[in-house]
């Protein structure tokens, strides 16, 4: 078991006449036996970061910084190296919308058996661990409910026994009961010594299982710390606004809209929406270096 050390990773996409700064200077460490939730609204760069770790970025992407998994530098590894040693073996991916990720013309069993053969895992064990009954496995993807498709995706991600699981919005579209069941499954994996990076916009889900929450805004981590502290005593005005927007709290939106990733301000990207902003916010704040870190000149 090793750590994943993400160190100042940036990802840019070159478009005609514009550069999309999707991920900016992100540093994050994930240890075995730990669940870290990466929280932020859609379009803030969460999925791009996950894709960068697995070598799934499109051709027009430029990366900088370093993401080390033990001795392997993920950002510089060749596709062959990633395919034969990393994907499925050390890092498992639970993709967004599993139903559309499964091959529609093959049964769950046949897809799982293939993954088990290639990765050298045990299909039956993975299915059982993901909570699938044998009869579910003989179904085609269109015959699976959202919750079942999710479990098949989990089994596929787990069959190679990776130590790190990256789950990209795994709870979207599931009922609360299914969400809770799924999160409990992730938590069991973490308690068994695995690591989970949960990418989500669902603060309640993050709060339920994460040890630490990292809040991302406009491609940057603006706050990271113990889950309950980030949610209950947020220091960054954006995190505070997000927590206050929950229906069980104030249910009030943060005014304004996130900046375009092609046209980020030089200073704090949140300043235009922030009631606490002053002239000092025209300088970009740096993420502090403590257990509950924040990138803000005027934290709450």
């Amino acid at each position, binding site marked *: 078991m090793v750590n994943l050390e993400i160190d100042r990773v940036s990802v840019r996409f070159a478009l005609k006449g514009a550069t999309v700064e999707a991920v900016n200077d992100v540093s994050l460490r994930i240890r075995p036996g730990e669940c870290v939730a990466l929280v*932020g*609204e*859609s*379009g*803030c760069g969460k999925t791009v970061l996950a894709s960068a770790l697995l070598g799934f970025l499109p051709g027009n992407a430029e990366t900088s910084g370093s993401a080390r998994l033990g001795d392997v530098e993920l950002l510089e590894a060749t596709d062959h190296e990633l395919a034969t040693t990393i994907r499925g073996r050390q890092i498992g991916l639970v993709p967004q919308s599993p139903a559309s990720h499964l091959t529609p013309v093959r049964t769950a069993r046949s897809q799982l058996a293939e993954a088990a053969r290639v990765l050298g895992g045990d299909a039956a064990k993975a299915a059982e661990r993901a909570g699938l009954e044998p009869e579910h496995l003989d179904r085609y993807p269109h015959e699976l*409910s*959202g*919750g079942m498709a999710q479990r098949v995706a989990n089994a596929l991600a787990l069959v190679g026994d990776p130590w790190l699981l990256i789950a990209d919005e795994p709870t*979207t*579209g*599931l*009922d*609360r*009961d*299914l969400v809770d069941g799924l999160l409990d499954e992730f938590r069991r994996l973490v308690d068994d010594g695995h690591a989970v990076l949960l990418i989500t*916009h669902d*603060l*309640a889900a993050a709060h339920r299982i994460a040890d630490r929450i990292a809040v991302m805004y406009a491609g940057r981590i603006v706050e990271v710390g113990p889950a309950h502290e980030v949610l209950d005593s947020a220091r960054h005005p954006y995190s505070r*606004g*997000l*927590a206050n*927007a*929950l*229906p*069980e709290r104030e*249910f*009030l*939106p*943060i005014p*304004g*809209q*996130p900046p*375009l990733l092609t046209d980020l301000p030089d200073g704090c990207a949140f300043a235009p929406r922030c009631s606490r902003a002053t002239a000092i916010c025209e300088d970009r704040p740096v993420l502090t270096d403590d257990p509950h870190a924040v990138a803000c000149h005027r934290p709450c």
Partner: protein
Amino acid sequence: MLTGTDITAGYRSAVISGVSLTVRPGRTVGLAGPSGSGKSTLARVLALLHKPFSGTVEIDGETVTGFRFKAAQRTRIGVLFQQPRLSVDPRFTLRQAIAEPLGHQEVGELADLVMLTGDLLDRRPHEVSDGQLQRACLARALALNPRYLICDEMTTMLDASTTAALVGVIRAYQARTNAGVLAISHDATLLDRWADETVRLSAPPPR
């Protein structure tokens, strides 16, 4: 009043049977229930997008007779879906998407309502976030001033702040026009906060 009476509907077999539901002007009715309980099927029937096997739908006292594509009564009901990406033509800019029901390109007021700014309006769906696209879908749904708005898991893809913002836009529209809203969600906490009352569909019998 938007009323469904004794609705039995489904695809080959019935998903809901004998369900009745009323949405009064100015009110917000929540619709909850587990996966597969028929929430979306009921929404599609009330939105005149799906013909029930039996039962009647009435809009402000008029019985609905046609569930075909051009049902004249259709425009009195706006619909918002769970996945904005599947509900906007990928070739359209957001401006064109909002303008489609209007028949002209002056979308300024609608765009202001959902807080979409100029530059975003000229982007296509793949160039904006789910939250921004759902804002455009809400503007499109409100374009013809519907008497009723049906929101089928509208907030599933959205973060807490965007959810609160869109619910705020819908409440403001209701305050102005006295429209009725049917809000479907699996998030009980959200419905507690959003809806005046919540109807719960029970789990489907095992098949």
